[in-house]
């Protein structure tokens, strides 16, 4: 099995435990979309280029995440409701070491 388990709290506060494949080059934003945990058109608006911040999420577990790219960092600098644990879901690829990851989707703006 190449799947990992992720806990995602949606914008209504409901927690979903989902399986995410690690062999499909998927990122967290795409996992959220594939499980329809946020309405289409409210997440991944730019398609995953770190250019819109519609996939902002708060990482609540202490997993070691890939380092933030310059693009992601500066996009978050313009986003709203940003916290210290904010990341863009589209910039978090699904890898084995993220098994058990817990995130919360940031409010829609």
């Amino acid at each position, binding site marked *: 099995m190449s799947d990992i388990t992720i806990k995602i709290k949606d914008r209504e506060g409901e927690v979903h435990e989902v399986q995410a494949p690690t062999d499909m080059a998927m990122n967290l934003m795409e996992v959220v979309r594939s499980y329809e945990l946020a309405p*289409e*058109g*409210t997440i991944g608006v730019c398609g995953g280029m770190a250019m*819109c911040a519609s996939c902002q999420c708060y990482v609540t577990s202490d997993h070691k995440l890939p380092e933030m790219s310059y693009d992601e960092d*500066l996009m978050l600098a*313009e986003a709203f409701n940003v916290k210290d644990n904010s990341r863009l879901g589209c910039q978090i690829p699904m890898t084995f070491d993220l098994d058990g990851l817990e995130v919360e989707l940031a409010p829609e*703006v």
Partner: protein
Amino acid sequence: MIQTDILIIGAGPTGLFTVFEAGLLKLKCHLIDALPQPGGQCAEIYPKKPIYDIPGFPEVLAGDLVDNLMKQIEAFEPGFTLGERAETIEKQEDDSFIVTTNKGTKHQAKVVAIAGGLGSFEPRKPQLQNIESFEDKGVEYIIRDPEIYRGKRVAIAGGGDSALDWSIFLADVADEVTLIHRRNEFRGALDSVEKVEELKKLGKINLITPAEVKELHGNGKLESISIKQEEDIINLELDHFIPLFGLSPKLGPIANWGLEIEKNAIKVDNTLDYQTNIPGIYAIGDVNTYPGKLKLILCGFHEATLMCQSAYKRIFPDKKYVMKYTTVSGVDGFDGSRKEAEKAVVKSIN
């Protein structure tokens, strides 16, 4: 009243290509878009990003794709209502539709093609208390007419291209330009960043970073803002505050047109012609949904092509028509231009 054959809502790649396919059928098009320029997301969000899945283009920048589409449809003389959002639709007795924008511009057509992508782009508003009470009273989220800032004191907030570009532009127009951003680094194009730096040295742009606007003050109209820069609070007197934090798409008023909506998209008949539940209204490109839908530009082009054939039958129910190849028939523009393949010269060999 603007009259046309096909009224296209949304001037992104799908809407633009519709003009070409309609033009081959001698149908005239007019486009409405909430953004001030054509190109939709390609022009607004990622003009400098390469796209790799446009058939025949191994690689094309989104902005260049839009430029090429504009060139391709030029001969079909499309009309544009830009910077206005399609607000209402009314069906007429003769089966045509009248679409009115938020600014009251009226358009009439037998066929309406919604190519609205994810919806019309609305500015993202910073969460500042009482900001709404200052809207159009000193707070603007989109610059529509730069002349209103002539001789005024203006502050812009944001760190992307539009914040940089407008700061540069207004440095020559406004009396005072202040640019405020949460970071010292900017996300915009390098040459824009360098230009701002240069203008800062010349004293034409007052740069405040890393900082954030915290409060708006005024009585009936905006008079000053409070800016938090690290531990300091700066009070800046001004006439206009322009937060430029990007745009996010909203389906908007189209959602109330009586169309069947599923997952923020318009349901269409994909087995035939991408018509919606209202005959005469079609939805093509990212705005529609059907089983197996993919939100790809190339799919939008295909949908636009089939839609135009159906639109033709609706507009001219009694006319016979067979699809023609451009290699055979060439392209006859509405401007009198003609493109056609060179005739082969056949010479007999004696």
